[in-house]
C-alpha cells in the first residue's frame, strides 16, 4: 500500500485526496442526516400531535356545547328546535372530526380503547338525544331535567368527554416527551457535525501534512543537492523519496550529477592534479598579482605560500617576462627566463602562460607553468658540443674516405696499367699458372676500381647539394628502361604508372631509380618471363613509390642487412655487384627526408618502397 502511494504520480495523489475529501464530506452529510433524523421525526410527530390535539379540543368544545344545549330547559318549541338543530350540527361536526381523529390517532396505538369509548359515547349520545326530543315533544315544556334520557345523554357526553380528556392528556404526555426528546438532543446534529468535521479535518490535515512534508522534503533535498554540486561535490546524490514527478525530477537530477561527474572534473580533482605537478605553477589575476601556487613552487622556491601570495609575478623573473596585460597574445604564449629565488640566486626556467576563464569569454586568471630547465640547459649544451664534435668527425671521416678513395685510385691505376701492359707484351711468355695469376690481378684491379668509384659516389652523394624541383619519376623510369641492357632472349613485362611526379632532386632520383631498376633486371635474370612494375600507393597514411619484381626475392629474416654498404644476400657468382647500390639508394632517400624499406619472399620477388618528405 505504501509502495503504491510512493509510486503514484502527484496528479493521482491530488485526485485521491479530492476523492477522499469528497467521501469525508458525503459521510459527514450522511452523519448529519442520521443525527438529525430523530429531531425531524420528532418535529413531524409534534406537528401531527398538534393536529390531533386540536381535533380533540374541538370535539371537546362541540361536546361541551351540546351538553350545555342539552342541559338547557327549552321554553318553547322554537327553542327546542334550535337546540335540536344545534346538537345535530354539532353531531355532524363531531362525526367528521372523529373520522379524522380515527385516521390520525391510529398512529398512537397505545390506547385503542379510548377511540372505541369515544365512538361508543358519540353513538350512544346520538341515540339518546333522538329519544330525548321525542319525549320532550310528547311531554311538553319544563320537565326535561327530570327525564332519564337527559341523564343518559349527559352520561354519554360525560363518558365521551372523559375519553377525549384522557386522550388529550395522553397527547400532552406524548407532546411533553417529544419536546423533552427534542430538547435533550437539540445539540446532537451540531455535535455530530463538529466531531465529524474535526475527525475528517484531522484526517485531511494529517494526510495533507504527510503529502506536503514528502513534497517539501523532496524539494529541500533537491535544493541541498544543487548547493552541494554548486560547491563542487559532484559525488552527491539527492535521495529519491517517491516515484512521482518529483521523484523523476530527483532521479534526472542525480543522472545529471553523475553525467557531470563523468564529464567534468571537480575542483578537488583539478587541485590534486595541480598539486601533483612537478613543475611550478603560479596563478595570478590580470594585474599580475599572485593568487595561488602549487606545492612544487613552494618546494623549489623554498618559500611559504603567504610570502608569495599577493606578490607581483613580474618581480620573480629577471628577463623576457610576458606581462599579463598583453591579454590578446597571452594565451598559449611561452618564454624562457631566469627565476629569482629568495636567496638572490637564479634558475633558468621555461614558462608557459595560459588564461583561465569561467565563462570562456572573460579571462579572470592567468596561469604560469614554470619548468626548471637548469638540467635541460646543461644537457642541451652538452649535446650541442657532442653534435659539433660529431659533425667535425664526420667531415673528417668523409674527407678521409674521399682522400683514401682518391689516393687509392692512383696506385690502382698503375697496377691496372702495368698489368694490362704485362698482359699485352708478355702474356705468351707466361706459363699457364702465370697467365691465371695475371688474369686474377686484372679482374681484382677492375673490381677494386669499381669499388672505389662506388665509394666516391657514396661520398659525393652525402655531400652533394640538393636541388629540389618537380620531377616526373615515370619519365625517368621509362628512360632507364629504354637504355637498360637486357640479355637477349629474356622477356620482361614492364608496367609503369604514368605521371608519377614528386618534388625532389632529379639527378639523385635518377641514380636511385637506376639502381632499383638495374637490381630488378638483375634479380629476375634467372626467370625467362619476368614482370617489373613501377608505381605509387598509400602505405600507412604515406604516399609510397615502389619498384616490384617477381625475381629471386629474399628471405625477410635478413631484411635489415639490405641497405648496409657491402652487405649482400646473394653471392657475387650468383648475382654480380658491389653491395653499394641499396646503401646509395638509402642515403639518397634519407637526404630527401624520406625512408626506404623492402618486402620479399624467396623466389617470389621483391618490392622496394620509398617515401619522400612533403
Amino acid at each position: 500500500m505504501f509502495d503504491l502511494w510512493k509510486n503514484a504520480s502527484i496528479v493521482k495523489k491530488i485526485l485521491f485526496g479530492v476523492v477522499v475529501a469528497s467521501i469525508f464530506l458525503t459521510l459527514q452529510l450522511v452523519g448529519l442526516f442520521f443525527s438529525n433524523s430523530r429531531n425531524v421525526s420528532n418535529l413531524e410527530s409534534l406537528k401531527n400531535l398538534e393536529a390531533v390535539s386540536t381535533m380533540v379540543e374541538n370535539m371537546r368544545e362541540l361536546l361541551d356545547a351540546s351538553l350545555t344545549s342539552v342541559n338547557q330547559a327549552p321554553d318553547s318549541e322554537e327553542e327546542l328546535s334550535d337546540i335540536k338543530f344545534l346538537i345535530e350540527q354539532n353531531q355532524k361536526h363531531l362525526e367528521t372530526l372523529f373520522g379524522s381523529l380515527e385516521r390520525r390517532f391510529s398512529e398512537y396505538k397505545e390506547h385503542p380503547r379510548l377511540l372505541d369509548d369515544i365512538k361508543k359515547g358519540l353513538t350512544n349520545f346520538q341515540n339518546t338525544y333522538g329519544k330525548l326530543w321525542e319525549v320532550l315533544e310528547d311531554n311538553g315544556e319544563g320537565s326535561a331535567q327530570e327525564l332519564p334520557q337527559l341523564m343518559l345523554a349527559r352520561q354519554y357526553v360525560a363518558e365521551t368527554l372523559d375519553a377525549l380528556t384522557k386522550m388529550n392528556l395522553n397527547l400532552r404526555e406524548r407532546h411533553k416527551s417529544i419536546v423533552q426528546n427534542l430538547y435533550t438532543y437539540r445539540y446532537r446534529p451540531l455535535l455530530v457535525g463538529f466531531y465529524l468535521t474535526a475527525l475528517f479535518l484531522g484526517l485531511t490535515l494529517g494526510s495533507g501534512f504527510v503529502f506536503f512534508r514528502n513534497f517539501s522534503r523532496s524539494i529541500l533535498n533537491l535544493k541541498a543537492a544543487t548547493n552541494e554540486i554548486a560547491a563542487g561535490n559532484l559525488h552527491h546524490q539527492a535521495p529519491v523519496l517517491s516515484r512521482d514527478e518529483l521523484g523523476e525530477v530527483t532521479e534526472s537530477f542525480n543522472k545529471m550529477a553523475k553525467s557531470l561527474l563523468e564529464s567534468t572534473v571537480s575542483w578537488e580533482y583539478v587541485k590534486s592534479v595541480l598539486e601533483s605537478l612537478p613543475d611550478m605553477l603560479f596563478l595570478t589575476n590580470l594585474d599580475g598579482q599572485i593568487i595561488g601556487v602549487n606545492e612544487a613552487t613552494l618546494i623549489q622556491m623554498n618559500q611559504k605560500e603567504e610570502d608569495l601570495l599577493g606578490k607581483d609575478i613580474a618581480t620573480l623573473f629577471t628577463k623576457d617576462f610576458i606581462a599579463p596585460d598583453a591579454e590578446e597574445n597571452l594565451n598559449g604564449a611561452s618564454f624562457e627566463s631566469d627565476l629569482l629565488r629568495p636567496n638572490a640566486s637564479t634558475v633558468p626556467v621555461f614558462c608557459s602562460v595560459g588564461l583561465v576563464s569561467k565563462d570562456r569569454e572573460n579571462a579572470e586568471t592567468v596561469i604560469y607553468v614554470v619548468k626548471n630547465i637548469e638540467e635541460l640547459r646543461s644537457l642541451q649544451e652538452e649535446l650541442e658540443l657532442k653534435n659539433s664534435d660529431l659533425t667535425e668527425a664526420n667531415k673528417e671521416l668523409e674527407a678521409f674516405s674521399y682522400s683514401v678513395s682518391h689516393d687509392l685510385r692512383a696506385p690502382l691505376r698503375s697496377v691496372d696499367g702495368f698489368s694490362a701492359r704485362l698482359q699485352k707484351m708478355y702474356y705468351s711468355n707466361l706459363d699457364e699458372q702465370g697467365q691465371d695469376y695475371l688474369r686474377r690481378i686484372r679482374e681484382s684491379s677492375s673490381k677494386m676500381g669499381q669499388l672505389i668509384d662506388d665509394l666516391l659516389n657514396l661520398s659525393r652523394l652525402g655531400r652533394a647539394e640538393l636541388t629540389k624541383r618537380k620531377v616526373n619519376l615515370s619519365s625517368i623510369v621509362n628512360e632507364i628502361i629504354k637504355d637498360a641492357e637486357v640479355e637477349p632472349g629474356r622477356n620482361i613485362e614492364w608496367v609503369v604508372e604514368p605521371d608519377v611526379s614528386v618534388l625532389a632532386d632529379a639527378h639523385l632520383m635518377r641514380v636511385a631509380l637506376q639502381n632499383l631498376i638495374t637490381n630488378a633486371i638483375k634479380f629476375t635474370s634467372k626467370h625467362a618471363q619476368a614482370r617489373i612494375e613501377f608505381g605509387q600507393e598509400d602505405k600507412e597514411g604515406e604516399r609510397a613509390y615502389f619498384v616490384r619484381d617477381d625475381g629471386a626475392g629474399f628471405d625477410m629474416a635478413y631484411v635489415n642487412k639490405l641497405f648496409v654498404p657491402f652487405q649482400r644476400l646473394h653471392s657475387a657468382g650468383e648475382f654480380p655487384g658491389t653491395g653499394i647500390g641499396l646503401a646509395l639508394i638509402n642515403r639518397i632517400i634519407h637526404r630527401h627526408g624520406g625512408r626506404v624499406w623492402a618486402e620479399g619472399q624467396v623466389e617470389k620477388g621483391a618490392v622496394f618502397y620509398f617515401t619522400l618528405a612533403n
Partner: protein
Amino acid sequence: MLPRVFLIICLGGFISLIAPLRTEAVTFIVNESNPIDTISRSALSDLFLKKERYWPNSSLVRFIDREKGRAERDYFLKNVLGMSQRQLDQYWVGKKLYAGDSAPLKAQTDSMALRLVHQLEGGISYISDSTEIQNFNVKPIKVLE
C-alpha cells in the same frame, strides 16, 4: 373459659368477613346484564373512583352517584370510600387534571338511579334498601367486607 371466648370471637370475625354488607339504608345494584353478583368494598371503591374502568366483561363501568345530603350517599362516603365530601371533591379535581376523569353523574332519586342503571350497560348505583327493584332490569350485588 378462655378457649370458649376465643372461639366465639373467631367465629364472629369469620361470619363478619363472609357476610354481605348489611346496612339498613343502602343496596348496591347493577344492570342485569352484568355477570357479577358480589363485589368487595375496595373494588367498589375503585369502580367509583374510576381506578378500574371496565367490568370483567369489558363493558364500561358507569357509576351513578347520588346527590349530596342523602343518607345513602353519606353512608357510601363513610363506609365504602372512607372519605369526606371535601376529600372526594379534591380527589376529582386531581383526577380530572391528571387522568381526565370527571366525577360520576348524580341521580337525585332512587327511581332515577334505578332507571339509569336499568338502561346503562355496565351501570351501577346504590339506592335505599327499601326501594323496590322488581320492575327494573337491575340486580342487587352483595358487598363483601
